């Protein structure tokens, strides 16, 4: 009886501890990030002064990420209206080049890896995006092919978008909530 009691006590304790740790990690970006419209960024990414929860959260969702002066990572799980990004919806991403030496936009499935599809449309970057005469771009994220600036979300399920800014200007990493970032607008869902 005593052995059973000890087993149950340890089992429950370990299960609750592991569950609460995974819950904290899941919401780490929510709790510690700076928001900019639908985008969020963690300023302590890669930094030695990151707290242990932030470090663990980054290890799970952004291992080997660089510090903010080198690269700033903005991630969006939702569109501008606050709806979760989903494979069965089409999104129009409107904006101008962010203030950085180079940038790229990539879709990731909820397991933090690239969507398992062979569409060869994994990302759009500063050097591949097509812009209009005013320098604005319109990127389409959808499961179906688009005529230009297409990122495929096929097989992504509920996904996220990561905007990487390489060598962002100091204006961006000193005030990441005020940076001029693209809007994510939902077009239609099936």
């Amino acid at each position, binding site marked *: 009886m005593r052995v059973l009691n000890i087993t149950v*006590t340890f089992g429950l*304790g370990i299960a*609750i*501890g592991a569950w609460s740790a995974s819950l904290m990690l899941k919401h780490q970006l929510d709790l510690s990030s700076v928001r900019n419209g639908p985008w969020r960024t963690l300023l302590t990414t890669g930094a030695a002064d990151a707290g242990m929860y932030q470090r663990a959260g980054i290890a799970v*969702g952004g*291992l*080997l*990420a660089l510090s903010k002066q080198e690269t700033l990572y903005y991630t969006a799980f939702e569109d501008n209206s606050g709806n979760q990004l989903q494979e069965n919806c089409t999104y129009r991403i409107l904006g101008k080049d962010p203030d950085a030496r180079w940038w790229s936009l990539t879709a990731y499935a909820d397991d933090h*890896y*690239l969507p398992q599809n062979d569409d060869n449309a994994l990302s759009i970057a500063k050097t591949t995006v097509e812009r209009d005469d005013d320098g604005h771009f319109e990127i389409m994220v959808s499961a179906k092919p688009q005529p230009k600036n297409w990122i495929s979300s096929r097989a992504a399920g509920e996904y996220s978008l990561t905007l990487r800014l390489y060598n962002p200007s100091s204006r961006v990493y000193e005030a990441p909530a005020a940076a001029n970032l693209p809007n994510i607008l939902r077009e239609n869902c099936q």
Partner: protein
Amino acid sequence: MKRAVRWILSIAVIAGVTHLVAIFILPRALMTLIVFKISSEANGVNQLYLPDRITSNSRKIVRPAPDLAYAICAYDLSDGPVLATLNTSETYSSLSVFANNTDNVFAINDRAVTGDVATVLLSNEDTDVTPPAGAIAVKVPSDRGLILWRRVITSNADWPKADAARREVICVPYHST
């Protein structure tokens, strides 16, 4: 009643300890796993590993960037310092060093390279070493970790150039004379 309170308190203490240990260990455990994977692929530590170009099937490290060419070296400083280099580049490229707790302890990009190449000498905090002339000395808080090179691929046509550029970097044990 007293017994029930004691039981609940015991569960709370075990849960608290498990929670903290999991959060503390996770980054180190993941890093240890990646260092092991990379050193296995490279046939040892302090050797360069050149992964295939990133595709939707790339699953070694989370959130890989498909528009970057990577080179990786799993370093081990227990037998002495390690020398690494970064060449100049027409586009963004960088060398970054990660300790075994995932901290990005050092990074340099192509804009900071003077001349054709930047040389970085990694050593642990217990090693007293004079770096070669012009080299940047970097003290790392752990014996093991990763050096990661990134080079932007500006378009599909740029891949051969990016691939060639990452083959020029080095990661070798350093023996001072």
